[in-house]
């Protein structure tokens, strides 16, 4: 025997090591015990035991979002896998590269309603980029390699590898392929040269240009190129929720966030532009609202995306460019540098004058009294105290929108939130994933009292690993975003949006072994934050800010309306 044979479980662990994985998040159970036994025997990577499988997947997901590397989670069969599904779907909707290993009942028991059996491949099929059931140990290493390759290339996404327990016992020689190619899967990398040339020409002809960027700029590591393009041309840039940080928010050429809770200037500019350069974005319903309304103004649209199916899906595009966004933008920058043509200065001046007029609406203004605290104020102070340097995760609701509106991200991969699926409960486990990837960084979770209770058990994981996360609870006593819709669209019938009997969050935090604070007055906001990042720098601090229960997120475009049909204050 030339090669020594390894068990399937040993192979799984070796694959992860050879892939360079440093952290995996998981939860054990019968079907994965062999794998856990091998994890126990090694220390090339660290396994982090969470308190619920959903949290394992969110943590791995945020690990990926904040680093660009593939996140890895491992769960057992049956309930382990079903608990992971929300996390997998969250990653899928935001195109996050993830490998999720799920245990499965032994191959001979599959289909017999065995204990803790579910059809994991069937359940996850609609919310993964791809999935595999490995029935033969000979295929295990290659399948794991494929999973990493598929997850991280093209339009990224989660890949599930379902491994029956007997496969983890079977023996075979180990060989981890260094490279892999699949005849059925070849993502386009280079954009079409002719189309790129057309795009540059169209951009230079623009009288009222807008650059519209989405999460694809972050995922494709194209922030540098996009920023350079916007600044070279001095064109306005607006971002989706998922793109924030891809262009520096503190640059005056940046118009802010687009969409349902976007700024007045960003939405008006998008509606009234003549040439739109869409980069790594997908014109979704939360961004352009009603596509008919959007199309009622004439736009010429250039769309760069790595996924051809994102192009011309909701809006007709004039110049489609399929390719890696960083690569395509590089080519555009080269053409711009080499060419003699430059933007129409006069038209651009007039366009900026119009934009400044919209901007002077100051759509994000609010008035802060001493009590109750305005939630926006907390985020603004957080931005100041952290000097804009924190990684910020969010849950889902009003607090998420305020975080996006008032924390100005100048760097990519700092703003971590569930945009596509809108998963409450994402924030705290996500902060854990980020903190493991960046042990020295300031990591903040902005949350609501509804969302935090969906994964609050993770405070225990945070204690086990002494993660110095700062939880900023904007406690308005309501499922605030639901309450806001009920106020606007259901004549203030607040059906089940008031959350009664909230726990004493300070005591609860203390019970988990962390520092808890209660803040009720505006004057105390900044000192509390300074303590959290100063005196308690190395501790997890949970600050319960009692904020105005009636505050709404403005501006707002009601669902199904057009970009210029915003409700201002």
């Amino acid at each position, binding site marked *: 025997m030339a090669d020594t044979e390894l068990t399937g479980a040993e192979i799984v662990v070796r694959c992860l090591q050879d892939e360079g994985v440093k952290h995996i998040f998981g939860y054990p159970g019968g079907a994965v015990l062999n794998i856990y036994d091998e994890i126990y025997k090694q220390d090339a990577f660290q396994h982090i035991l969470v308190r619920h499988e959903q949290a394992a997947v969110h943590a791995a997901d945020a690990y990926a979002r904040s680093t660009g590397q593939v996140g890895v989670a491992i769960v057992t069969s049956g309930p382990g896998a079903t608990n992971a599904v929300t996390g997998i779907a969250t990653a899928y909707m935001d195109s996050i590269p993830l490998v999720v290993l799920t245990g499965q009942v032994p191959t001979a028991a599959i289909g017999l309603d065995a204990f803790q059996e579910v059809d994991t491949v*069937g359940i996850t099929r*609609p919310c993964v980029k*791809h999935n595999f*059931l490995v029935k033969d140990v000979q295929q295990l290493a290659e399948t794991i390699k494929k999973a990493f390759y*598929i997850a991280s290339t093209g339009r990224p996404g989660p890949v599930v590898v379902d491994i029956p327990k007997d496969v983890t016992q079977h023996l075979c020689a180990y060989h981890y392929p260094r490279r892999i190619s699949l005849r059925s899967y070849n993502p386009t990398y280079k954009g079409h040269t002719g189309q790129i040339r057309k795009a540059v020409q169209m951009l230079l002809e623009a009288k009222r240009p807008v650059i519209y960027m989405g999460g694809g700029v972050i995922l494709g590591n194209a922030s540098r190129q996009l920023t350079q393009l916007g600044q070279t041309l001095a064109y306005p840039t607006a971002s989706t929720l998922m793109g924030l940080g891809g262009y520096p928010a503190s640059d005056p050429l940046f118009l802010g966030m687009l969409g349902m809770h976007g700024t007045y200037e960003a939405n008006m500019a998008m509606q009234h532009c003549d040439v739109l350069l869409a980069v790594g974005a997908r014109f979704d319903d939360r961004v352009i609202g009603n596509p008919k309304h959007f199309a009622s103004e004439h736009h010429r649209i250039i769309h760069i995306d790595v*996924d*051809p*199916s994102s192009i011309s*899906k909701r809006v007709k595009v004039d110049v489609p460019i399929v390719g890696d966004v960083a690569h395509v933008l590089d080519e555009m920058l080269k053409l711009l540098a080499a060419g003699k043509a430059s933007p129409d200065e006069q038209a651009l001046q007039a366009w900026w004058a119009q934009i400044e007029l919209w901007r002077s609406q100051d759509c994000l203004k609010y008035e802060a009294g001493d009590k109750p605290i305005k939630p926006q104020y907390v985020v603004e102070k957080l931005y100041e105290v952290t000097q804009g340097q924190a990684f910020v995760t969010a849950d889902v609701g009003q607090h998420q929108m305020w975080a996006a509106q008032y924390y100005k991200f100048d760097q990519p991969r700092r703003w971590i939130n569930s945009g596509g699926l809108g998963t409450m409960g994402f924030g705290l486990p996500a902060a854990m994933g980020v903190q493991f990837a960046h042990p020295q960084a300031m990591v903040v979770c902005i949350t609501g009292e509804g969302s935090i209770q969906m994964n609050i058990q993770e405070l225990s994981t945070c204690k086990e690993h002494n993660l110095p996360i700062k939880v900023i609870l904007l406690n308005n006593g309501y499922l605030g975003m639901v309450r806001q819709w009920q106020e606007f669209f259901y004549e203030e019938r607040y059906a089940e949006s008031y959350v009664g009997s909230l726990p004493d969050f300070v005591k609860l935090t203390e019970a988990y072994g962390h520092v808890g604070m209660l803040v009720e007055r505006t004057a105390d906001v900044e000192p509390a934050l300074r303590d959290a990042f100063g005196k308690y720098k190395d501790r997890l601090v949970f600050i319960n800010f009692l904020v105005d229960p009636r505050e709404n997120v403005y501006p707002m475009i009601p669902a199904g309306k057009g970009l210029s049909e915003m409700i201002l204050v």
Partner: protein
Amino acid sequence: MRHIISLLMENESGALSRVAGLFSARGYNIESLTVAPTEDPTLSRMTLVTRGSDEVIEQITKQLNKLVDSVKIQDITDGSHIERELMLVKVRAHTNDLREEMMRLGDIFRGRIIDVSDKTYTMELTGTGSKLDAFLEALDAGLILETVRTGACGIGRGERILKV
């Protein structure tokens, strides 16, 4: 518009459910779907018949292409092509008149009688979907006991070849 889409997929377990799942998840309409391995046993070939506006068909093609297991795809209705479907029909044939009538109809539609009992005939027909429809319409509905159709499969004419 009716479109016939040919798809070469890795012959992996689950490939069919990925395609079927895609159609139901995205609300695309699916008229028929046939699948079988090709001369290369690592590949299956599917023929999908669907209807939709140009935009919908464009999305269907892109989404099918995006499936990690799909190797090649072609909308064969984009060019000249041949379409065939197989149908088996069991009809009442308990009187001489009926038997003659069935034989005559069978001749007209180039069908073949492939099974006979004292009360029934079973006929085999191939052709385009509309030819098979026409045959069924020509029959008195009360005489039909059972029909089974494969759904269309199709191939491009001449040099139009879908191969890896």
